[in-house]
């Protein structure tokens, strides 16, 4: 177990290192942030001062060196545009994104698994077929378009739900949360549903396929031959087997929900990290971009670890020591 965790840690650090070099060089190649940050009326002296202040006068490698050195001590640099530490900037936006992503995932899991099971148990029934048809829509319609349609229908046309921002928030341990107030919850619904739709469809299909496969297995036939109730067969024998792939996918998809919240956040003006990233890319605010990506990668690594642990808890045939290779 310890060896497994250590190996994981080393792997993750290597990934983070490679990532940061790529992003550093990538942003450097795209353009010079000075052209965007300094007004075109500024004189040359002013420009030079700004360049020195941001450290942009040095070579890219010495810039990377001082960044990496700072990163080791937890300092990811100051935002070019805002002048505050990039990490701090991201951390203030993170709760909004995590809240949105978690709610979306909750909707996707809470609806996706039961609907997928119904569709899997009665694949030829009207309900099963309707669920599958709906999930095809959820898969194929683009997220931003669905978001706009949701706003049109529920915010503009019916006027039931707000479509903009987080609404009223409550601080819990200094973290602002929307879902604890009625107004915040109302603001959360549309973006969360929008973000959940794709994952919901994915989970429905995954669960359905798993249920159909498991129901045809000998162990289900044997369980029936023992005289077990269908509740027990589906709820224990089938569910426990299909949870293995489902948990894996939920874990991996949660990372991508956080990462791809960008689209939903900009459609619904949700003040999360994704929106911050878009704004930062527009002004080539390199420290924020790098810090954001490092955080996302760390999140993926962390979730993968949790998935592996959950996996070994669910599947008795898997032992952690053997799974270090993924």
């Amino acid at each position, binding site marked *: 177990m310890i060896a497994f965790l250590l190996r994981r840690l080393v792997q993750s650090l290597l990934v983070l290192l490679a990532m940061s070099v790529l992003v550093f060089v990538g942003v450097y190649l795209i353009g010079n942030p000075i052209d965007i940050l300094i007004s075109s009326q500024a004189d040359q002296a002013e420009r030079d001062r700004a360049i020195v202040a941001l450290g942009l006068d040095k070579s890219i490698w010495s810039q990377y060196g001082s960044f990496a050195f700072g990163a080791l001590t937890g300092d990811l640099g100051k935002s070019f545009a805002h002048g505050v530490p990039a990490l701090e900037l991201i951390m203030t936006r993170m709760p909004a994104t995590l809240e949105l992503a978690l709610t979306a995932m909750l909707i996707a899991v809470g609806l996706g698994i039961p609907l997928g099971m119904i569709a899997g148990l009665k694949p030829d029934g009207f309900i099963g077929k309707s669920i599958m048809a709906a999930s095809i829509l959820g898969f194929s319609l683009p997220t931003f378009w669905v978001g706009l349609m949701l706003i049109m229908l529920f915010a503009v046309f019916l006027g039931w739900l707000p479509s903009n921002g987080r609404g009223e928030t409550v601080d819990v341990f200094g973290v602002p949360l929307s879902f604890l107030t009625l107004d915040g919850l109302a603001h959360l619904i549309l973006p969360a549903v929008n973000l959940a739709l794709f994952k919901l469809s994915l989970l429905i299909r995954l669960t359905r396929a798993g249920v159909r496969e498991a129901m045809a297995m*000998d*162990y289900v036939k*044997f369980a029936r031959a023992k005289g077990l109730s269908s509740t027990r067969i589906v709820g224990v*024998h089938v569910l*426990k087997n299909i949870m293995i792939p489902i948990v894996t996918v939920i874990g991996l998809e949660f990372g991508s929900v956080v990462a791809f919240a960008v689209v939903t956040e900009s459609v619904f003006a949700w003040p999360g990290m994704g929106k911050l990233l878009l704004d930062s890319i527009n002004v080539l605010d390199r420290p924020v971009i790098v810090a954001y990506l490092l955080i996302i990668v760390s999140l993926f690594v962390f979730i993968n670890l949790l998935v592996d642990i959950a996996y070994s808890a669910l599947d*008795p*045939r898997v032992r952690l020591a053997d799974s270090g290779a993924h």
Partner: protein
Amino acid sequence: MTTLLDVKGLKTYFATTLGEVRAVDDVSLAVAEGEVVGLVGESGSGKSVTGYSLMGLVDAPGRIVAGSVKLQGRELVGLGERDWRALRGHDIAMIFQDPMLTLNPVLRIDTQIIEAIRAHADVSAARAREWAAEALAGVGIPSPADRLTAYPHQFSGGMRQRVAIAIALLHKPKLLIADEPTTALDVTIQGQILAQVQTLATQMKTSVIWITHDLSVVSGLANRIAVMYAGRIVEEGATTDVLTNPAHPYTRGLLRSLPSQNKPGETLTQIPGAPPRLLGERVGCSFAPRCDQAQVVCSEADPDRTVAANRAVRCHFALREEVAV
């Protein structure tokens, strides 16, 4: 002997895109109390589907379209799911061919035994555990109390089949349907399992339908043998009668293809041709195309089940003129 199970004219068909597959087509079979019946036939002859039909485990697109299955006089065809559930694992139990697939890989052995106990008996958790350990001991699993907490993958194939047998026999069922339980195991283990089931069934006075494609497996085990071909029982009788004096050409073919029936070095005779399709209208005897004694009548008229001298045969020429083996 009193009749335990009485199957009459059972037909189980599968609706497929190509048409109706007649997997079990007019099967009649009686099993007496405490009797072991060997159900023998080649792959695809409908042995498993017959077993599932007796357990009420035929799934769509399959359906029992006709016939009657009576257990101690009680009609089982058309029974509701609730009644079936009370029956399965309690009065009729079944074990399957591949022990690697029969047990749920993600549930512990104790979970899988205890749920089967509790499906039919209202006992305390402690008593259920005890019962589970006794059941494992009963099929010869060493240190059963410790093995209870193991997962299926920690057992060998033979041990897993023993666990499945232990589960099937928990409630001393009246009938055990053993669907080729030794086919996937190596020969020494096969013998052990065979002997184990025989001993336990005798102890519990459980009747057994032992399904196999291998006549030699049931020759030492079964009181009676039923030979199945293309969804039908073509010959049925006492084991010694059927083995020493087979009445149906198919049974004779099966016997000739057994290694033990031949002198060393002699080539085994195979039954020519391929197994029949079970689709479409039945015209004549389904074995006729492969039969070396087929006459014109065989491809024109479907033979009826003729019963004589403790033997039931479906052949136009059987039981009329005895043909030497």
